[in-house]
C-alpha cells in the first residue's frame, strides 16, 4: 500500500527532525550558558568594550608614522632609524630558532626510535619516551624560558634551550609516529642477518624516514622563528626584548616598525621553507 508506506516514512521523518531539533536546541542552550559564564568571568561586557574601543583606535593611530609623499625617503628613514640594530636582533632571533630546532630535533631523533611501538627495544622505553615528549610539549615554551632564565641568566641561551626542549617534545611525537608507519620488511631482513639494534635503525629505518623528518624539521623551524621572536618578553633574547622596550616606553612608531620587520621575516621564512618542503616531497615521490 503506497499510502501506508508514505505515512510510515512521514512519521519517521518527523521523528528524525524532532530529534535533530532537540539536539540543536540543547547545543544552543549549552552554548548560551557557556557564553554568559565566560562573559561574566572574563569581565567582557558592553561597557568595557565601549571604553576600550576608542583607546585601541587611538593607540593604533599613534603607532602609524607620518609619511608624506614629498619627504618619502626621509620619513621612512626616520621611521626605521633603528634598522641596523633591529636587523641584527632579527638575525639573532633566526639563529636562535635554528640552533633550537637543531638541538631539539637531534634529541627527538634519538627519542623517536624508543617511542615507536614497532622499533622500541623494550616496552618501558616506549612509555618513558612517550611520556617525556608529552611533558616537554605540553608545558608552554615560555614557561620553560621563565625558569631557565633563573638558572642560566638573561640572554639568548635560556631561550634557545626552552625552544629546544619544546621542539624535542613536539618532534619526538611526530618522529615516533613516522617510525610507526614504515615498511618493516627491511628491518626484518637486517635482523635476520644478525644486525644489532643500532645497525638496524641506521640501515633499515633511517633511509625510509629521512624525507619525512626533514619536512617536520623545516615546519618546526618556521614555528620556532615565531617563538624566538617573543622569547625576549621574559628576557630570553631576540627581537622580543626590543619590542617590549618599545611598548613599555611608549615609542609608538618603533612598535609598528618592529612589527613590520617581524611579519616580513616570518613570511619570508615560511615561503622559503614551504618551497624546500615541496622540493623534498617531490623528490620523495619520484624515487
Amino acid at each position, binding site marked *: 500500500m503506497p499510502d501506508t508506506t508514505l505515512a510510515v516514512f512521514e512519521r519517521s521523518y518527523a521523528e528524525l527532525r524532532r530529534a535533530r531539533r532537540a539536539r540543536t536546541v540543547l547545543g544552543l542552550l549549552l552554548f548560551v550558558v557557556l557564553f554568559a559564564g565566560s562573559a561574566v568571568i*572574563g569581565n567582557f561586557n558592553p561597557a568595557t568594550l565601549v571604553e576600550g574601543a576608542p583607546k585601541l583606535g587611538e593607540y593604533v593611530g599613534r603607532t602609524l608614522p607620518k609619511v608624506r609623499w614629498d619627504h618619502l625617503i626621509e620619513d621612512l628613514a626616520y621611521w626605521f632609524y633603528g634598522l641596523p640594530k633591529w636587523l641584527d636582533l632579527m638575525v639573532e632571533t633566526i639563529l636562535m630558532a635554528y*640552533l633550537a630546532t637543531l638541538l631539539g630535533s637531534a634529541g627527538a631523533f634519538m627519542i623517536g626510535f624508543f617511542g615507536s611501538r614497532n622499533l622500541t627495544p623494550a616496552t618501558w622505553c616506549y612509555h618513558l619516551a612517550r611520556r617525556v615528549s608529552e611533558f616537554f610539549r605540553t608545558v608552554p615554551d615560555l614557561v620553560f624560558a*621563565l625558569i631557565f632564565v*633563573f*638558572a642560566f641568566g638573561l640572554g639568548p*641561551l635560556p631561550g634557545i634551550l626552552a625552544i629546544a626542549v619544546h621542539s624535542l617534545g613536539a618532534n619526538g611525537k611526530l618522529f615516533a609516529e613516522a617510525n610507526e608507519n614504515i615498511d618493516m620488511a627491511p628491518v626484518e631482513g637486517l635482523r635476520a642477518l644478525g644486525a644489532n639494534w643500532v645497525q638496524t635503525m641506521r640501515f633499515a629505518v633511517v633511509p625510509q624516514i629521512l624525507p619525512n623528518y626533514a619536512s617536520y624539521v623545516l615546519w618546526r623551524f618556521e614555528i620556532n622563528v615565531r617563538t624566538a621572536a617573543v622569547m625576549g618578553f621574559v628576557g630570553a*633574547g631576540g627581537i622580543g626584548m626590543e619590542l617590549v622596550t618599545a611598548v613599555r616606553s611608549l615609542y609608538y612608531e618603533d612598535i609598528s616598525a618592529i612589527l613590520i620587520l617581524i611579519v616580513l621575516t616570518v613570511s619570508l621564512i615560511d615561503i622559503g621553507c614551504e618551497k624546500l618542503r615541496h622540493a623534498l616531497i617531490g623528490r620523495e615521490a619520484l624515487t
Partner: protein
Amino acid sequence: MIAVQADIDLARIAAIRARMPRAFTRGPGERFALWVGWTGFALLTGYCLWRFNFSPVYLWNGLGELGVIVRQLFPPSMGEAPGDIFYALLETLAMAFLGTFLAAAVAVPMAFLAAKNTFPFWLPRFGVRRLMDGLRGVDQLIWALIFVRAVGLGPLAGIMAIFISDIGTLTKLFSESIENIDRRPMEGLRASGASSVQTLRFSVLPQVLPMFLSSALYMFESNVRSATILGIVGAGGIGFQLSDRIRAHYWEEACFILIIILITVACIDAVSKRLRLAIIGSKAGGREL
C-alpha cells in the same frame, strides 16, 4: 658485523664495482656539493654555539642551578590563596572560549570572501588573504602585549589577542573547507531553479558547518594552551599567577599551578577530540540520509 651470504664472493663484487662505479659511490660533483653543504652546516652551527655562549662550563653551572630549582618545585603547594588560582584558571578558559567564538563569528563571512568558489573577484580575495596572513604572522603574545598597553591589564586584552590572531587562522581553515566542498549539490540546486541564497543554505552550509565547528573546536583547544601564557605579559588568566610565582621564587606554588594547567589542557583536549569526532561522524551520517 653483517654476515655476507656465501654465494656472492668478494671477487664478483669487485668486478661489478669496476663495471658500474656510480652504483657504489657518488660522482665528484655530488660529493663536492655534499661537502659544501656539510661544511656550511658545521660552520653555521659552530658560529651559533660561539655567539650564544654554549660553553660546557656555563651549561654545567646552569644545569646545577636548574637542579636546585627543580628540587624546590616539590612538594607542590596551593599556597595561601588557592581560590585565586582556580578563578584564574576559569578566566583562562573564558578568554579562550570568547576569543575563539568571536573570531569564528568574524571568520565565517571572511572565509566566503577568501574562497575561490564562492567569491570570484581575485583582487579583493587576494587582499583578504594577505590581511589574514598578516594577522596570523604576528604571534598571539605580541598582540597581547600591545592590547595590554591599549586597553589595560586584564582578561579583555587576552580575549582581543586571541580574537585578532584567530581571525587569521580560522579564515584560512574555513576558506579551505569551503574550497573543498562537493560541487554537485550546488549544481543540482541551481539546475532546479534555487536562488543563490537558497543554494548557499541548502548545499554549501550543510557541507561546511560541521567542518567549521570542528576547526573552531580545534582552535579552542589550541587557545586554551596559549591562553595559559598570555598572562605573562599581563593579559589575565592563569599565566599571570604562574609568572608572578616564578618571579617571586615561590617554586612550590608555581609547580602546583603548572600541574593544574597540564591537567586542564589534557581534559579539554580529550573532551574536544571526542566532540570533534562526534560532529564529523554526524556529518557523515547526514550524507548517508
